[in-house]
């Protein structure tokens, strides 16, 4: 109460620049990067029971990365000028890193998928190792897009790229679990009962791995919130906005409780850990939670007035 009552009588606030197209783009690149990493891990380990998952994810990664940039171009005010990004690049802008990464990564991803499907193991391994840094940077740079826009207190933190990468892993594994479970249920009738049992165990293991990555994500979010609440005034405002303000239902309710804690209990809980249904429900919840996280970050970060 330094000044008593303060009323802003008149000021101009311009419309939010980045809308949910950007959030969706973050979500899709996250899914793509997550599934690519899973695919490469499966290929590198080279065990026979990992093959189906390696193949599904190899095709998912480039497919999702075709959807993702469509969101970006739709978001432009002048979509037909998108080629300016390549002709008039600016190396200090994170969007420029992105426009080149988004070109290179789907190419490597597609060649990698062809190698996996034609069973050329060595070529697939080399391309996979080359592709992992690309996959990480194609999603990590989206964190830099937010972190380097220094006006917004919610975005301007060094933890942002890591938070994005870890949540991308979570949602990517979630998607793989869903698709592998659908395949196991309806499209895997030819396999022997022993194989089916092994596949099921593999899906459950993947879901448990997801739960451990969720723990890491929760730790990062907690440290981000703690620093926001003890840093300068704008950051405090941003922290309160997502903890108690307009975005609290989405952040605390959907992202933290529904999207992280409930899936963790479902996957690791003693009763439900053997159930494939629980793993699938947990994966769907996780993806809803990560989508909510993108919404809270992109839209919520911009709602704090700047002037």
């Amino acid at each position, binding site marked *: 109460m330094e000044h008593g009552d303060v009323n802003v009588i008149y000021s101009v606030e311009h419309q939010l620049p980045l809308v949910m197209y950007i959030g969706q783009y973050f979500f899709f690149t996250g899914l793509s990067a997550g599934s690519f990493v899973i695919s490469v891990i499966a290929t590198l380990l080279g065990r026979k029971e990992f093959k189906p998952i390696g193949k599904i994810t190899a095709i998912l990664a480039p497919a999702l990365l075709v959807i993702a940039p469509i969101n970006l171009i739709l978001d432009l005010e*002048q979509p037909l000028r998108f080629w300016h990004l390549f002709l008039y690049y600016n190396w200090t802008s994170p969007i420029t890193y992105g426009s080149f990464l988004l070109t290179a990564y789907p190419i490597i991803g597609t060649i990698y998928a062809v190698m996996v499907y034609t069973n050329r193991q060595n070529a697939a391994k080399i391309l996979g190792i080359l592709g992992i840094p690309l996959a990480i940077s194609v999603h990590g740079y989206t964190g830099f897009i937010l972190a380097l*826009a220094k006006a917004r207190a919610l975005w301007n933190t060094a933890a942002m790229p890591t938070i994005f990468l870890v949540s991308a892993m979570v949602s990517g594994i979630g998607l793989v679990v869903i698709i592998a479970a659908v395949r196991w249920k309806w499209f895997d009738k030819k396999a022997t009962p022993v194989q089916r049992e092994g596949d099921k165990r593999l899906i459950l293991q993947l879901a448990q791995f997801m739960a451990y990555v969720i723990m890491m994500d929760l730790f990062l979010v907690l440290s981000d919130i703690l620093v926001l609440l003890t840093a300068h005034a704008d950051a405090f405002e941003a922290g309160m906005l997502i903890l108690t303000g307009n975005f609290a239902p989405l952040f605390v309710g959907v992202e933290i409780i529904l999207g992280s804690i409930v899936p963790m209990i479902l996957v690791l809980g003693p009763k439900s850990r053997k159930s494939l249904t629980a793993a699938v429900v947990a994966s769907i919840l996780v993806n809803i939670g990560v989508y909510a996280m993108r919404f809270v970050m992109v839209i919520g970060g911009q709602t704090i007035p700047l002037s």
Partner: protein
Amino acid sequence: MAEKKRYAMVIDVRRCIACHACTVACKAEMSVPLEVNTTWLKIVEKGTYPDTRRFWIPRLCNNCNDAICARNCPTQATYKREDGIVMVDQHRCIGCKYCIASCPYDVRYINPLKNIVQKCYFCSHRVDAGLMPACVESCPTRAMVFGDKNDSKSEVAQLLAANATVVIKKEMQTDPQVFYISADETAMSNIEEDINYYTEGAITKIRF
């Protein structure tokens, strides 16, 4: 000796009578569409009746020396001129709006008619022709003063030398070039504990 030109503006808030002439002049000069503003007056009211008072500051682009918008523009559509004015090339801008998201001062906007990003250019076309920016020209109390900061004979340099000046959000490390004399801290800052906004909040302006 001859240093490079560096255009800057000094706004003496003690002289400002909040007549909005700068807002109107800017709208007319730059053909600014409805819904958006390049120059405007921020007005806050402090205290409870009967101990109240209004404070205000004219707001416009700071044409920062270390402009985050120019650094983050992916197509170099936003660039800094030799004399320090930050420009937007309207034929190169793709409208990715990243500059608006990075600007700490909310002075950039999407022109709803041209579908590109625009801002205040210190009326570069008038400055190049040897005239003053429209807002400065229209100010009835001469509260706004514009000129070359590096020319010690200019009114801007003398005002800067003789007065205590402040800039908006110095902590953003952008080196703003619009200086205020006797500006109120509450009117300059965006966050206050018990602030009540009577303007239309940004959240209601999301377009899909």
